[in-house]
């Protein structure tokens, strides 16, 4: 809906600009668009009203900047306000001086607590901690079993016993201390905020374990009810923050805004997929950009750093630039990328990617990737280094070896060659620039580098690469030209 919103606002008459500032009437029109867009995004009515008023305050009487259309001005204000509401800076998770650090998860049924618990454990493990999971959900059949299976995938132990949730939590905590674990994550049963008995129970667990962090797990598809849930849980448990799940759905996630508006505590983690790796700290600024469809380079880089094998990637990327990219490198890259999580999730983070590409990526069948891998693996080392030697009989052999068809092999080889050609162009700096993707990418890079020195050099090449990559598959179709072609600020090299 935010895509739709920015489009709608872009259409606001540009003639407004001549007047130098937005009149009240213009503002009313724009804000009523903002209002229904937020409501369609499931932001709670009260929160919407407060939000719209804040945007109005930001805009009223403001002199219009020469470089922005009135629509863009409104978008900018909405974006800024979004960031402000989502929290200026993320909550930093620190650890108790006397371990273990206790984390309690609570929420409605089906919000994704158990999965979030396992993902959180994996996250802590990645931070070099030794997490321990306590399965205190004795309500739902097989919830403990689910946590066990997930925990096994991430290599974390689970404590549970067939007693009652309070005892499980207490004993689990004692066991964690005995084992010398430094982080304990307690998964509780899903409960309705109006269920007094169950709310008392979770309060008792909190009292007994005095958690350092209490997180409400909330589903991104939640509607107007998010405020009731958030408030009730906050009143019962005094939350330290929220974990938002199911961000990979096509929901707008307005519930996040509603819950924040009521609780006033930050969203700390965000979960965006079924894979363990689809979980990260929540960055308000990134989220605001992502909501507005601007991509999110920072998350992408961090995710890459966490999961990819630096040397492998650097080596083949170097060859990529020099144009000596082989099928071996391709295989290595493919493996690295697959480690990072679902392609759809990755593409969502990538700026300058068209909606069509995003849909294509989220619909990529993992099996398809398996087949591609199988084809390459069915080649001899010599063939991988020099695909030109692959003749008819070799093709037949490869097709048989990979249980695919000759035409699949042909297709892969053909596209690999095209890809190589494109990369050579990029390496030489002669990339055919696509205004939309490049412009947005460059702008983002410049903005990001202004506040984060972790950004890579060579971002220009990256933007160009993305742009040409995005333009190629459509066979030169003109429809992915973005309308905002103009403002291309070259990224600052630092």
């Amino acid at each position, binding site marked *: 809906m935010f895509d739709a919103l920015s489009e709608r606002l872009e259409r606001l008459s540009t003639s407004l600009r001549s007047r130098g500032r937005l009149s009240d009437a213009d503002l009313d029109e724009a804000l009523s668009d903002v209002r229904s867009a937020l*409501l369609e*995004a*499931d932001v709670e009515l*009260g929160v919407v009203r*407060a939000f719209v008023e804040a945007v109005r305050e930001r805009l009223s009487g403001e002199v219009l900047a020469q470089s922005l259309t009135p629509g863009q001005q409104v978008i900018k204000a909405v974006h800024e306000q979004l960031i402000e509401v989502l929290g200026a800076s993320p*909550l*930093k998770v*620190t650890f108790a001086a006397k371990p273990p650090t206790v984390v309690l998860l609570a929420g*409605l*049924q*089906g919000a994704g607590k158990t999965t979030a618990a396992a993902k959180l454990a994996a996250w802590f493990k990645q931070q070099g901690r030794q997490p321990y999971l306590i399965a205190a959900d004795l309500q739902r*059949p*097989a919830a403990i079993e*689910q946590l*066990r*299976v997930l925990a096994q995938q991430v290599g974390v132990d689970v404590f549970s016993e067939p007693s009652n949730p309070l005892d499980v939590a207490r004993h689990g905590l004692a066991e964690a201390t005995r084992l010398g674990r430094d982080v304990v994550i307690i998964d509780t049963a899903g409960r*309705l*905020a*109006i269920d007094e008995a169950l709310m008392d129970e979770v309060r008792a667990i909190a009292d007994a374990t005095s958690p*350092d962090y209490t997180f409400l797990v909330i*589903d991104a*598809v*939640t*509607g107007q009810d998010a405020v*009731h849930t958030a*408030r009730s849980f906050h*009143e019962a448990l005094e939350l330290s923050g929220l974990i938002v799940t199911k961000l*990979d759905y*096509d929901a707008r996630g307005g*519930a996040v805004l509603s819950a924040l508006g*009521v609780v006033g*505590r930050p969203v700390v983690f965000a979960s965006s997929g*079924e894979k363990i790796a689809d979980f990260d700290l929540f960055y308000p600024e990134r989220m605001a950009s992502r909501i507005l469809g601007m991509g999110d*380079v920072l998350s*992408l880089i961090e995710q890459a750093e966490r999961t990819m094998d630096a040397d492998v990637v650097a080596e*083949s*990327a*170097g060859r*990529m630039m020099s144009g000596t990219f082989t099928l071996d490198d*391709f295989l290595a*890259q493919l493996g*690295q*990328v697959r480690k990072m999580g679902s392609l759809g999730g990755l*593409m969502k983070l990538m700026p300058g990617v068209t909606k069509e590409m995003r*849909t294509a990526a989220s*619909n*990529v*069948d993992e099996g*398809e990737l398996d087949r*591609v891998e199988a084809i390459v693996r069915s080649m001899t080392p010599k063939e991988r280094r020099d695909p030109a030697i692959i003749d008819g009989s070799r093709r037949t052999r490869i097709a048989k070896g990979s249980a695919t068809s000759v035409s699949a092999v042909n297709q*892969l080889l053909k596209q690999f060659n095209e*890809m190589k050609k494109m990369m050579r162009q*990029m390496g030489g700096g002669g990339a055919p620039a696509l205004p939309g993707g490049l412009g947005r990418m460059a702008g983002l890079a410049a903005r990001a580098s202004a506040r984060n020195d972790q950004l*890579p*050099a*060579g971002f220009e090449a*990256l933007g160009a*690469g993305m742009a040409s*990559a995005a333009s190629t*598959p459509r066979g030169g179709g003109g429809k992915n030209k973005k309308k905002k072609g103009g403002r291309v600020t070259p990224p600052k090299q630092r």
Partner: protein
Amino acid sequence: MTVLYVVLAVAVVLGLVFVGTRRRRRRGRPALVAPPRAAMPEILVAETAPMPSLERVPTLNERLASSRGVFDRVRSIAGTTELSGDQLALVEEVLLRSDVGVTTTSAVLEELRAKGAPNGVAAALRVILLESLRGERSTSTAADEGRVPVWLFVGVNGVGKTTTIGKLAKRHHDAGRSVMLAAGDTFRAAAADQLEQWATRTDSDIVRANEGADPGSVVHDAIGRASARGIDLVLADTAGRRANSTNLLDELSKVRRVADRDPGQVVETLLVLDATTGQNALSQAREFLAASGVTGIVLTKLDGTARGGIVVAIERDLGIPVKFVGVGEGVDDLIVFEPEIFVDSLLGA
């Protein structure tokens, strides 16, 4: 095969980003030392932003408190026959807060304006909403001669599909039907275990397979066995899936096709919806309808504070009727949907 391109584009970008960061690191920071684990911070919690206390947001809370009375205020306008701007605004607020959605709310307001409110606004609104809920709500348990009727359960993750199946198994069991459960959720960890516990509780048969097995084959097996044993009804679970993934929806279509093949016959495909879901429910319904021919909705978790108004939009737009509602955790807390009661609760009457 744009797939390959997508993969490569990702690979290229990431590779470059990575090389860039590494080069930079080498230049800027000579040695990247891993943070020493031993040095634990002494402070328990240090936040970058100060935590607001519980009472820090009084204005919003006040506003919410006042809005809680909205549903009561509808009753207060029951007697008026003239539609004022205030009343329409109030109706709008009631509907929006129930998750009915902007589009449907505008349509309802339009109708209200056109028809007027000779018997009071609340009554007029009630009539309009009830007209939106006119679908056929009966469920079928009868298949063609010699075939086994199958109820297929679909929906996104965490809405309560497995629990709903457990409750419905009880319902059918009480009605004297023998039931076979098919553990078609082979994706979520321990989903089959969860269903098996329900099978034990409700005294039903179950067919399950290992995690990662083909859901279609599980359903097929279950139908085969049900047919051989002369069981009256098969309730087939499926894995929760997001509605914006073509692959997952294709998989679901396949499961449905398999279930509908002789000796099975899908007589109901029930979309399980969580009442707390907002506008996304509409796109869920649309996608699942296209993929699996949904015949009805089970609205779960209606015992909370959520009102589930989005089903009004779904029935108006897509014509899918709600057939059951879940109103609690107990095994008997699944009841047949009644529009009058639902609308009254929506309007706070």
